[in-house]
């Protein structure tokens, strides 16, 4: 197998890009490319693209709205269309919904407050590139830190996501008012995952736990198997 090649996109206002790069270096290994939002092209032959958390463009207009229209996003959309795994965490999830790569939208938390704490999640499917390293129904602990994490989609879309096994993670407790307590969703092809919790902040015991590690390992293993 050739060297694993990943990229982390940095938008103005991203603040979890370094954490994401460290997680990719330590868990996935290989080459981690840092890509600026204003670049028109991604590095060639990428195996994995991550959109990090933060407050891109100061959350102007809507969270993720400006970043979704930045020059690099057309290249990310094209790569996702070719089947390259794309992970969006927190603000990255907001960017993916704004870019139309994932259904639904992230509204202001139902309680109006910024929520910053560890939360319990249930892994809803392990039949996926990102979650194959977990078992279905497994409960894991991952931190969240967001103001706009209240997942919304119309009832028909929610039913479709559930019936197609595209709800990847669900909160095991009330966190932000998300429809059906959805914490992470997949696209139809299964190669794009958006989630509000931060798996990159849980990759080794020094961070308080390593429940996020299996997500990154799953992508590498899936690639080897493919």
């Amino acid at each position, binding site marked *: 197998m050739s060297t694993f090649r990943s990229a982390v996109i940095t938008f103005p206002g991203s603040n979890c890009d370094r954490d994401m790069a460290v997680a990719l270096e330590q868990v996935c290994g290989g080459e981690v490319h840092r890509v600026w939002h204003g670049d028109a092209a991604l590095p060639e032959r990428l195996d994995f693209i991550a959109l990090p958390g933060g407050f891109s463009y100061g959350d102007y*207009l*809507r969270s993720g*709205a400006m970043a979704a*229209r930045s020059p690099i996003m057309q290249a990310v959309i094209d790569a996702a269309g070719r089947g390259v795994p794309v992970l969006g965490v927190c603000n990255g999830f907001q960017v993916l*919904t*704004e870019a139309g790569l994932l*259904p*639904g*939208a992230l*509204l*202001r*938390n*139902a*309680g*109006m407050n910024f929520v910053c704490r560890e939360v319990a999640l249930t892994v809803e499917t392990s039949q996926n590139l990102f979650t194959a390293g977990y078992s279905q129904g497994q409960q894991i602990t991952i931190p969240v830190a967001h103001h706009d994490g*209240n997942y*919304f*989609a*119309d009832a028909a879309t929610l039913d479709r996501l559930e019936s197609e096994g595209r709800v990847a993670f669900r909160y095991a407790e009330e966190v932000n*008012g998300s429809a059906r307590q959805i914490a992470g969703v997949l696209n139809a092809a299964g190669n794009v995952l958006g989630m509000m919790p931060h798996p990159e902040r849980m990759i080794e015991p020094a961070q308080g736990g390593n429940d996020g590690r299996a997500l990154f390992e799953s992508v590498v293993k899936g690639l080897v198997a493919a």
Partner: protein
Amino acid sequence: MKVRVIISLKNGVLDPQGRAIHHAIEGLGIHGVQDVRAGKVIELEVDNSVSDAQLETMCKQLLANTVIENYRIERMAAAETV
């Protein structure tokens, strides 16, 4: 010409901000307000060359997120502008 774009949340979309405002209004001692929905207004100064279709494109692709929001475009006559 001035163009005003009014963006509002669709029916059925939870509006925590509107709810908080509603609560604060009650705190003023004013009762009888049934519901509060918060939206936004974006004012654009545009050349006459900007078409209605281009305004629609702006709204659909950027100014509003049509998953959760409705938008209305108002072209304002010169007399209305301040």
